[in-house]
């Protein structure tokens, strides 16, 4: 019994000691409303090391560190936009999972729609042209062609 209690005490002590050693403690904020905001922001911030993950999904140490920084900014009273601009000032628009619409990202946002418009336009032109050809049918033969046709038929019969 005493050994079990000792083991439990050692375990608890161990758990307490670990965060104290870490330089960044990745712990939720005590205020649940602020923590919800922090977690929502974590999903919008790109992990710069792993690049296709948000910091909410990444185990990289920089991601951990940035999660803590986001919580600190929120606790300091920053609104969501201020937290983002704090990080954008240091890492550029890259740090956002959803890049903002500006001159350098215009192609990124508009490009797919431009390509779609080209494809739809091309298809429409093709279909319309084809339909017009079908509707027009074949033009009647003129006199000269009638004569040639008659001659060919005569030759064969």
């Amino acid at each position, binding site marked *: 019994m005493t050994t079990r209690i000792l083991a439990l005490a050692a375990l608890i002590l161990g758990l307490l000691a670990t965060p104290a050693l870490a330089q960044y403690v990745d712990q939720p904020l005590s205020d649940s409303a602020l923590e919800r905001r922090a977690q929502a922001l974590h999903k919008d911030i790109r992990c*710069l090391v792993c690049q296709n993950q948000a910091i909410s999904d990444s185990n990289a140490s920089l991601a951990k560190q940035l999660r803590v920084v986001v919580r600190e900014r929120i606790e300091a009273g920053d609104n969501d936009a201020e937290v983002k601009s704090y990080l954008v000032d240091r890492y550029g628009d890259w740090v956002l999972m959803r890049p903002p619409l500006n001159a350098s990202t215009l192609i990124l946002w508009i490009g797919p729609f431009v390509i779609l418009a080209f494809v739809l336009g091309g298809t429409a032109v093709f279909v319309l042209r084809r339909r017009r050809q079908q509707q027009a049918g074949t033009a009647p033969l003129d006199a000269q062609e009638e004569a040639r046709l008659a001659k060919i038929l005569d030759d064969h019969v």
Partner: protein
Amino acid sequence: MRLRYLLPGIVFLVVAVVLGVGLTLKPREIPSALIGKPVPEFVLPAVEGRTGQFSTADLKTGSPVLVNVFASWCGPCRQEHPLFMELARTTDITIYGLNQRDAPADAARWLETFGDPYDKTGADFDGRASIDWGVYGVPETFVVDGSGCIQFKHISVLTRDVLEEEILPRLRGEKHVPCTP
């Protein structure tokens, strides 16, 4: 009529050129948001066994300097280290070392083992200063002009090519980017 037959060729060429240019880009290297910006405010103690501090004031002395972010846990740092040793030995370029998230004893041992090319070192234990500098990988090397304005950042191992083509000209004051606070 002839355009109709040329069109697929033209489309192919455009796509090939765009993709070809895309292949030369390095998507892992995120351009620094701090080029043309003043260096962040920071004060860091020297790496263990050294005296003094490394701070913002050191970067506003009138002459351009290099700031190299390094750590003992960073393998590639060892690869570029001889180049910094050579610069320290053969030139009078001022080189500062920002030691990122290192155990004090490890950093000191690393500099003793491989040599210390730095005029000053700053130990960024918790990585705060590194975040302010927009550092996301180690090693990174910054060129800062005499007024404390960040001119250039190289990410990953510094090579002789990058040193000669990008860094030395900027240290001489070429390719200067005006500062916008």
